[in-house]
């Protein structure tokens, strides 16, 4: 090949790189490996990890260990899907474009809003982009300009992403208060009327389903965006936010279609009303026609995006999570409406049964037990969560999430999670070990 170009050495191809910036010597890295050696090393290293499935796990707190049907993995690894990129040439990308148009429809139906994009990075970036989108749409008429309100329960890591995305546009993030029982304080919502938007989660970060959300749109009015983050599986039982006036719905799409995978790649859901369409982030597929009048799909509304609008774009997002969204679409297609309902029932009843069993343990309090919960609830322990989790770990149980990581003053709050993968036996096992540990705390005290 070099000879064909009249060159004698590979070095000739790099003659344009000045000597002063050339690397000298080998990279200080291990020698090349064969496929078999890499696989063996991967199995050794990843095998040293404790996968949740090897233990009994009650860890959730935003990501949920649900079952993903086998067909999803088989189909998503078809090379035509797996190895494609952004469908810049729609004539040869109809499969992915149509699958994403269908994904938009599935999400739209799920959350009760007319528009959905084909994914953002995760739930936190979807939430953050929703806040900046709300300001773009409402700032002109807002009486409290450049301001959004978010639930005070929002996990700090999610809030941190929001701060990073909002600070450039000089958006103030203020907080909505919650009552001691975990439900939203509607009076604090009244104070947010006049701002650009409010952000609230259903179920909330403590697993609480809050009936008060159905009143929020009436309180804040049409010039303040109601942004609701959802656990998508819950929507097989819980009202679609679009039905109670949500303007934007976001969420961690992961429970539909994706393993937890250390927190990524997963996908963020973003759906909205038509009023937000031209100022929303992310890619959107539209149905069109080809020159013969045949139905054909293509990316549309690209003039919002960075490759056209550059620094005036609604977001910098380019590469997104389409392939994972495709897994979500496949899971939804397999579930159907009744399957979604069943899946939601399995998740919610596991949580309900756990509430009953753990609520009977002496020395343990469920501070928000008057509420309905989805997936998870808070357990107030007679000692520190850290200590409790360490004890449970020693008997092969991943006991949940230590809430002092979110709320430093809550040293004794444990968030335990129950999904469709949780069995009655596992709940009984947790209850038994918690009871033993709780009684030991009494002795220690």
């Amino acid at each position, binding site marked *: 090949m070099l000879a064909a170009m009249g060159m004698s050495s590979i070095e000739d191809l790099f003659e344009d790189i000045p000597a002063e910036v050339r690397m000298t010597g080998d990279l200080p890295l291990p020698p090349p490996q064969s496929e078999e050696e890499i696989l063996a090393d991967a199995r050794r290293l990843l095998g040293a990890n404790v996968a949740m499935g090897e233990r009994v796990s009650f860890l959730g707190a935003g990501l949920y260990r649900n079952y993903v049907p086998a067909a999803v993995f088989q189909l998503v690894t078809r090379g035509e899907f797996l190895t494609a990129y952004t469908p810049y040439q729609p004539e040869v990308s109809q499969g992915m474009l149509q699958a994403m148009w269908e994904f938009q*429809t599935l999400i739209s139906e799920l959350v009760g809003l007319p528009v959905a994009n084909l994914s953002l990075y995760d739930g936190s970036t979807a939430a953050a982009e929703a806040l900046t989108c709300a300001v773009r749409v409402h700032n002109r008429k807002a009486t409290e300009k450049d301001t959004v309100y978010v639930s005070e329960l929002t996990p700090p890591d999610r809030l941190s992403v929001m701060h990073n995305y909002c600070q450039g*546009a000089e958006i103030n993030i203020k907080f909505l208060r919650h009552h001691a029982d975990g439900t939203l304080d509607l009076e604090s919502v009244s104070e947010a009327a006049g701002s650009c938007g409010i952000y609230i989660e259903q179920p909330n970060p403590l697993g609480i389903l809050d009936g008060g959300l159905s009143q929020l749109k009436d309180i804040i009015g049409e010039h303040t965006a109601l942004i609701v983050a959802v656990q998508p599986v819950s929507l097989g039982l819980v009202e679609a936010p679009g039905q109670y006036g949500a303007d934007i719905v976001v969420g961690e799409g992961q429970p539909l279609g994706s393993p937890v995978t250390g927190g990524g790649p997963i996908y963020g859901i973003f759906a909205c009303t038509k009023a937000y369409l031209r100022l929303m982030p992310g890619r959107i597929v539209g149905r069109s026609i080809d*020159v013969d009048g045949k139905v054909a799909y*293509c990316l549309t509304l690209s003039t919002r995006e960075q490759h056209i609008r550059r*620094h005036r774009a609604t977001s910098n997002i380019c590469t997104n999570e389409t392939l994972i969204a495709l897994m979500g679409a496949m899971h939804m297609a397999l579930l159907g409406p009744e399957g979604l309902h069943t899946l939601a029932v399995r998740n919610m009843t596991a949580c309900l049964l756990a509430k009953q069993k753990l609520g009977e343990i002496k020395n343990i309090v469920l501070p928000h037990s008057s509420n309905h919960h989805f997936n998870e609830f808070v357990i107030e322990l007679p000692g520190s969560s850290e200590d409790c989790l360490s004890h449970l770990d020693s008997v092969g149980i991943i006991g949940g999430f230590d809430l002092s990581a979110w709320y430093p003053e809550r040293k004794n709050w444990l968030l335990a999670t129950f999904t469709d993968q949780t069995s009655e036996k596992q709940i009984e096992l947790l209850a038994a070990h918690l009871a033993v540990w709780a009684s030991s705390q009494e002795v220690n005290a």
Partner: protein
Amino acid sequence: MSHLFEHNGAVGQGYSQPAPVLPASSIALPESLARKNLPRWPRLSEPEMVRHYTWMSKRNFGIDTGFYPLGSCTMKHNPRVNEVIAQIPGIADIHPHQPEHHIQGLLAIFHEMQYMLEVCSGMDQVTLQPVAGAQGEFTAVRCVQEYFRLRGETQRTKVIVPDSAHGTNPASAAMCGFEIVEIPSREDGRIDLDALRAVADETTAVMMITNPNTLGLFEADIVEASAIVHDVGGQMYYDGANFNAILGITSPGLMGFDAVHFNLHKTFSQPHGGGGPGSGPIGVKSHLAEFLPGPLVKNRPPVGDESQMAIDDMWYGWYQPTHSIGKVQQWHGNAGAVIRCWAYYRRYGRGLRTMSEHAVLNANYLRHAIHKAAKEAGVDSLVKDGAEAKVAKHEFTLSLQPAKEMHGISAMDVAKGLLDKGYMAPTVYFPLVVPECMMVEPTETESKDTLDTFAIHFAEVLQVDAETLHAAPITTPVRRVDEVYAARNLCLRHEYDDE
């Protein structure tokens, strides 16, 4: 032509589920919470669902289908062992909140990836958290922003980008709140140092640039450009979109950069079907390291019981940088993508330079082969290099301006003609500085035969008359799609007839 929502069979659920642990009737949600109508999703059996997605996959073009020379996107082969590795429960079934002693192997791989990217880029500290190239840009510019805030240099409100930059560069800097100053490129597509000198001043925060640039040319003046920006106290940011050209040959650190992002999904082959997922780690010099999003991975010798679980006699743990900007993704980034990219890098190890050499060899050879084939077919007058250069790097640009002037054949026409030949078309109309631009990037994973055949087919397309090419493609699942119709008649979801 069918779509998902035409399926509403009585068969229903595509997979069976176990019974819930309590009857559904035990859930008594009040009116204010209960869903009234289930989503109008289709009802498919598993075989119906499998056929639907298989049918759609056959209407899609991936690297597995054929040559995919999409410039700027580095569409290299995705080795299948990487997919096998990503399904190992030790990554697929890991929760980011698991304690350190549960994830020693994962942290060891993260640490190795941080280190590998540090030595390849000449940076002092890498974070793997950003999940895409654009997010990496955003993250790095945020770090620089906080660095200047801490130093009290709040007058630095401007970010300089060349007019040939990827659109994400100005978009990311604008999201951080910076004013964008765009500088023109020289006639030959390279950076104009005089234009840079004219705008660089005490208000400059960052200059963002990629090298090789978007024309596939190495910016030989990069060290001087860095000096100009550093002289006014600004920071240099390296857009790693084109890293595939320089691994083991040069590094952003040697060129004078302070921060860099990597597109792992391009350079190290994470499959990004349909537009993602990606992974966009960033590396920075030591003065910016304490601003990175946390947590980062560090290691030390194990203490006490740790030695039983230690990996190769090292213990791995998280730590938070002192002035961290916080998080840009809630978890630990796209860990699954990082694992796949680790597997890709391991096949080269210290020989990563070979990867870039082959990528550059393939690009230059393809450029040569296209010109040669065009000449032999007597159509060399229709196409010229997008930029004059003796050698290109990992990609190159062509201009179809002569074809446009002589026959009314546009770059888009040639792109559509290539689709009919069974190829993914190169990137068209980017960068904007080249008229009727076509940007070609073959990557290192293509054979000489593939490149030779593509060159001949390219020349064949140039021989086709304008009228025929305007009608191309004709062999694809649909023909030219009306994008204006799509924008004017917005149909963004399936609408049911009863609405």
